[in-house]
């Protein structure tokens, strides 16, 4: 080893200071522009932050791929089957006429919407792919009310940063940032392939977030909460996914 000369000491010191200052500045900028995911703590925080930040910069307004009608899958895969008697089954007998979507949090006019109320808002149909983190996928036509229509109707307060969405299944809830919440393809979906959304695919109401993996598209939605912080929800990691060991951001 060479003895540490004064010059070397000074250059090393300057480099270290510049490095620390640079990192601090980067952290401030990232925080300010909402580039830090809620599950940024822990062993895999750096990778998650790099992925989320770079994709947020790259994909703020980009649209998920939409497909021609002939590419709709003839045999889509519903994934998990719902245990009989649980979840939305009891509501099914009444044709979901008692299904409500509560919207509260940082909104000017908290609301409780029926499916008919939702369908009265402007709706959109899109043919997009559901891609599961396991590797499989299918394409379907999804018909629903863009989340942005609901948010506009209730009046989102300017400090809002996330929309948290809850399912009739207590252990399944998730959240998205405003870039995804205001995205035109983020749908509160109630129709699939020209019919009602089947219960096995999340009916009567499923959040479709086509720019992220399937697990962000939570089934059986009953409540939306608009918030400026994810800390008060669950363990504060943004959704049930990180509590189960999975990433909050699933755009990969």
């Amino acid at each position, binding site marked *: 080893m060479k003895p540490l000369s004064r010059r070397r000491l000074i250059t090393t010191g300057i480099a270290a200071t510049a490095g620390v200052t640079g990192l601090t500045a980067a952290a401030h900028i990232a925080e300010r522009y909402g580039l830090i995911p809620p599950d940024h703590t822990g062993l895999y925080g750096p990778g998650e932050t790099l992925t989320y930040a770079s994709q947020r910069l790259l994909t703020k307004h980009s649209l998920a791929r939409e497909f021609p009608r002939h590419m709709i899958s003839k045999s889509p895969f519903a994934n998990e089957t719902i245990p009989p008697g649980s979840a939305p089954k009891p509501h099914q007998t009444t044709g979901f006429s008692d299904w409500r979507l509560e919207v509260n949090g940082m909104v000017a006019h908290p609301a409780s919407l029926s499916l008919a109320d939702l369908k009265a808002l402007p709706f959109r149909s899109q043919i997009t792919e559901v891609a599961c983190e*396991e590797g499989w996928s299918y394409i379907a036509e999804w018909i629903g009310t863009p989340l942005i229509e609901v948010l506009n109707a209730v009046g989102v307060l300017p400090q809002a940063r996330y929309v948290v969405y809850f399912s009739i299944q207590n252990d399944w809830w998730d959240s998205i940032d405003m870039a995804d919440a205001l995205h035109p393809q983020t749908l509160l979906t109630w129709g699939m392939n020209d019919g009602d959304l089947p219960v096995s695919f999340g009916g009567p109401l499923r959040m479709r977030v086509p720019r992220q993996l399937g697990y962000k598209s939570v089934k059986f939605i009953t409540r939306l909460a608009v918030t400026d912080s994810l800390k008060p929800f669950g363990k504060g990691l943004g959704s049930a996914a990180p509590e189960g060991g999975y990433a909050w951001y699933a755009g990969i």
Partner: protein
Amino acid sequence: MAHLSNPEGSRHSAVVRITHWLTVIAFLALLVSGAEIVISHPRFYWGEIGNVNTAPLFTIPIPSSRATVPTGYRYVMPDQNGWSRYLHFQAAWAAVLTGIAYMLYIWWSGHLRKDLLPPPRDRRWRAYRDVFARSLHHAPPQEGDARSYNVVQRTAYLSVIFVLFPLVIWTGLALSPAFNSAVPIAVNALGGRQSARTLHFFVSGALLLFLIVHLAMVIQAGFKKRTMAMITGRDGEAHESMEHPKSLEPQEGL
């Protein structure tokens, strides 16, 4: 000690050594976590879509970590996808950033031109044939074998650096629905999401094959010495080799 050219005059420069071991760590993490992710759906498809209701291109005959996948086994493996996915993408970032640093270095330092690109006289099939022929006949090593990569080694390294790594990154990125929304051609050019996934699997397999051959060659050339050279940069017996050409090592590890 005229060696693989680098400013320090050692066998492997500090940048090459550091990036080599960072890549080793990242690649092993990607390999293990990637295999874990495959276990959750050991079926592969071609085209845009594929699921248990569609015909697979091929399946890997192992149990799955999902009960919804028909594997023929009654056994369902434990779900390891959470940490596997976190680790896979963190390691991918490490590999990509290391790769960028390495690419810039080999271009800037001349390592690429001097040590990796085959010299003009070797850019012919005959040069490849000669290397294999010498190896098959256990011919005594030639002057310079221990100091420089032969044309087969160079081609293997260049293929990994400029073909397989870029391909594995591309096919991986093509699995990201968000990235695809910004750059749809990334997945469309590969023939769809499931084609991208299948290609990602095969390119990873090719990288694994390289790793196995690389390790075999390193072992053949002297595992301890070659590994120490990649750690310390010094070649323990280089001086001796120069003085006694007969003791030149047979082949440098691929």
